[in-house]
């Protein structure tokens, strides 16, 4: 069944069950991936998946939902029936409606859908990449985590008032995570991830080079004394922190009481006036961009922090109605609709304001800790309390030298961190989760050696 046929099928079955109001989201995907181990194919995978989520509104306008992978005629009927039963337990205190923007035109980027290159080519490319990475330095003994994948998928949203949207795209990913070992030293590990619209678009050489350089750069390591340090966040690590605390901008989290913000936080000063943060799912560099969200609302660029102050929250249909604004294209599709950011873009404003622009990670000769990558976010972030304590990979820069930090955590409070940003470097870097420059923070606690 294609997406139009599914819509027709749901419509017919809904009529039969006397369900006047419904919507659905569906996704169909074909994925292929390979892993290698010292030149040999290890696991080769292919999957064909289909997921359908149907919502129905009962006569009391309460919503019920069901999700299924069975997109047959009988599966669709069963899903509608189950959703109808579930609607008896619909949330009476917070109604859900169709997005008022579900029929608005969507901005579809130039379609960059690639054809599959096939498992054999994926395997050949990954084998060669593994060999090159192993040959790049004598201490790199293995590439224990590696993979090359390509995915082809279609997403659909439709509702009983005639909204219908679909788009299809392709995406490929390469990850190489190397392990280096030297005599009488602990093994060190690091890696790189690259995305592309198709396997042929991935910059394989840069992935190899980055994985190699990062791994080797950690070979000369030392413990760090527990203390407070001047910190420079890499673009990737700063984006990780912002995403981990994105509940500050999330209307759903605010309503649920699990955000540091409240309904009146628009305009609250969080940081230096030089800081701007956007959510920009349609950014031309965002390979994972989607033109509409789970409720069919078009995706758009939204300013979250303007000159250091909260400018907007991200919304679903229901949170937007509660906040008396319009949906922003950040909704999922569920019984209780989730809200989440797409792709964060961090920028320095045109003026420098109070920034200490002499702080540049490539030239600064004073002592500071460079945080390359934050780990274990699920364990070390308490978003509702604003605190974090996270292990990281990074270096201690001192007297013009840098040494990899053996094992340490950085701890702090997100509001303190944002308030104590003392420089935003000028050049932005592209990562898999967004774009950001390097960000300097005055002092944070690092735990290493006692």
């Amino acid at each position, binding site marked *: 069944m294609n997406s139009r046929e599914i819509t027709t099928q749901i419509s017919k079955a809904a009529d039969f069950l006397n369900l006047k109001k419904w919507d659905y989201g569906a996704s169909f995907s074909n994925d292929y991936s390979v892993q290698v181990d010292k030149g040999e194919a290890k696991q080769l995978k292919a999957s064909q998946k289909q997921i359908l989520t149907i919502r129905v509104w009962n006569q009391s306008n309460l919503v019920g*939902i069901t999700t299924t*992978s069975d997109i047959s005629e009988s599966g669709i009927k069963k899903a509608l029936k189950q959703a109808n039963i579930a609607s008896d337990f619909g949330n009476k205190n917070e109604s859900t409606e169709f997005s008022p923007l579900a029929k608005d035109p969507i901005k579809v980027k130039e379609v960059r859908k690639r054809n599959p290159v096939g498992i054999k080519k994926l395997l050949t490319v990954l084998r060669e990449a593994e060999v090159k990475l192993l040959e790049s330095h004598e201490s790199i003994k293995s590439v224990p*985590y590696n993979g090359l994948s390509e995915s082809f998928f279609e997403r659909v949203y439709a509702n009983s008032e005639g909204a219908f949207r679909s788009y299809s795209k392709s995406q490929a990913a390469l990850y190489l995570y190397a392990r280096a070992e030297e005599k009488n030293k602990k093994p*060190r590990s690091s890696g790189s991830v690259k995305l592309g619209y198709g396997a042929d678009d991935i910059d394989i050489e840069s992935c190899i080079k980055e994985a190699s350089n990062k791994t080797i750069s950690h070979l000369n390591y030392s413990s760090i004394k527990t203390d407070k340090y001047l910190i420079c966040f890499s673009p990737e690590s700063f984006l990780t922190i912002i995403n981990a605390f994105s509940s500050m901008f999330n209307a759903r989290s605010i309503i649920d009481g699990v955000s540091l913000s409240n309904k009146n936080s628009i305009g609250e000063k969080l940081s230096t006036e030089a800081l701007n943060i956007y959510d920009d799912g349609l950014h031309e560099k965002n390979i994972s961009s989607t033109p509409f969200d789970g409720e069919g609302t078009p995706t758009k660029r939204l300013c979250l922090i303007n000159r250091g102050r909260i400018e907007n929250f991200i919304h679903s249909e229901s949170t937007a109605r509660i906040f008396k604004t319009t949906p922003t294209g950040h909704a999922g599709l569920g*019984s209780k609709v989730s809200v989440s950011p797409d792709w964060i873009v961090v920028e320095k404003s045109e003026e420098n304001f109070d920034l200490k622009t002499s702080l540049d990670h490539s030239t600064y000769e004073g002592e500071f800790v460079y945080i390359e990558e934050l780990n*274990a976010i699920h364990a070390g972030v308490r978003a509702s*309390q604003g605190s974090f304590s996270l292990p990281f990979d990074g270096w201690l820069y001192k007297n013009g030298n840098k040494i990899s930090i053996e094992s*340490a955590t950085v701890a702090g409070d997100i509001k303190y961190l944002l308030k104590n940003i003392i420089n935003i470097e000028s050049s932005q870097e592209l990562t898999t989760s967004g774009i950001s420059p390097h960000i300097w923070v005055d002092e944070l606690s690092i*735990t290493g050696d006692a």
Partner: protein
Amino acid sequence: MLSSQIKSNEIIFGSCNKDLLEEIIFYGIGLGADFVEIFIENTDNSSVLAEEDFITSVSPSFGRGAGIRIFKGQKDGFVSTNDLTKHGLMRSVSQAIEMLDITDNKREVFNGLNKHRDYSLSKKKWINEVPSIHEISEKLLVSTKSLKKNNKIITRKGSYSRNLQEVIIASSDGTYVSDIRLHQTVGLNVIASDAQYRSSGSRRFGSSGMPNEFRLWDHEKAANDVFESSMNMLYADYVDAGQMPVVLANKFGGVIFHEACGHLLETTQIERGTTPFENKLNEKIAHESVTAIDEGISEGSFGSLSVDDEGMEPEKSVLIEDGILKKFISDRAGELRTGHKRTGSGRRQNYSFAAASRMRNTYIAKGEHSKEDLINSISEGLYCKSMGGGSVGATGQFNFAVEEGYLIKNGKLTSPVKGATLIGEAKEVMPKISMCGNDLELAPGFCGSISGSVNVTVGQPHIKVDSITVGGR
């Protein structure tokens, strides 16, 4: 006539599918596979969320799919699909064969499937015995109401989820198994707030194969635990970072062993060369007070199974005995690639993942000390009463968050502290577990790894670690 044709050409749960499964396996072997495995599932799940005094989400889901795995030498090809017709399954076999680029003429022998081992016979009634959405909703609302003990509690949540999974497993070594798995889990969460102070508390409970368990769950006790935890932590100061002795509480305190050591004893880690214990079998890797077990047989425990996802009954594996490494946790691929015998630990989240060696109910065995013995033995340290999540890195370093902690001074528990993270490496910490209490208890959890998220139990008695890095402020 038409009806029987349809039946013979697709997998029907509750019917005999032997002929079709054999035909598909014969097809794979005929094309040159060394080994063919078919895993088919049919799921019926539901979840309910209560917030404050209202049900805010009811989410049923159902689905079906197949995962087909082909081995040739040590390579394997895995294809998953929602298409359970003969045509769909044959196509998946062809795809896996094609991916593996099998060209040799060597053919393995397939003698047909063995006698059907049906573990589902006594379990078919479960779906009618589990609580209804109405019953679940009522109990969750009573539970969230019980959390409202003062006006500092600003957020109250209760969540329930039920997963019913019917599986058929067939493979070219003759394995032919059916089973039904039932997992229920319920959790309570609160956020407390007073001026600038904030804290949270949470507890999760879970069971496998016990349809009546949610009805028996003591929601009042759970609500009291969560409330007290959040109140104790509301005005807590941040812990000072440093190296110190710690006592880890029983139950979910076992997450330290799960993350720090358990994962490194899975054969997938040997395959990758990422465990420091690879060549340490029968060597001392932990303090002699430590005996650690992984098993899938404790009745009702969240990680228990009648049969693993490769059709093998789970065994009780003594991983470490008196500090000596005795066994690794192994699946079919692990046995093939590392030589360690399977332990009934081949597990996967669902049909779209190939099985891998995964923990089940994993715990440190009880010792002889009381909890007080452990605390009394420390002049300055940390008591970790409740643990948050954790993770282990590619080179064996682990970390996990302490949700509820107290300073120990002169052998006594003193003030509550927040923001602590325990950091270390398994091979350095295991020899430092110097005392084990006599109060072993288990706790349910979810473990995410190579084959997806699976239900597990962690556990331990109270244990003392002589020295560990505590991350703080």
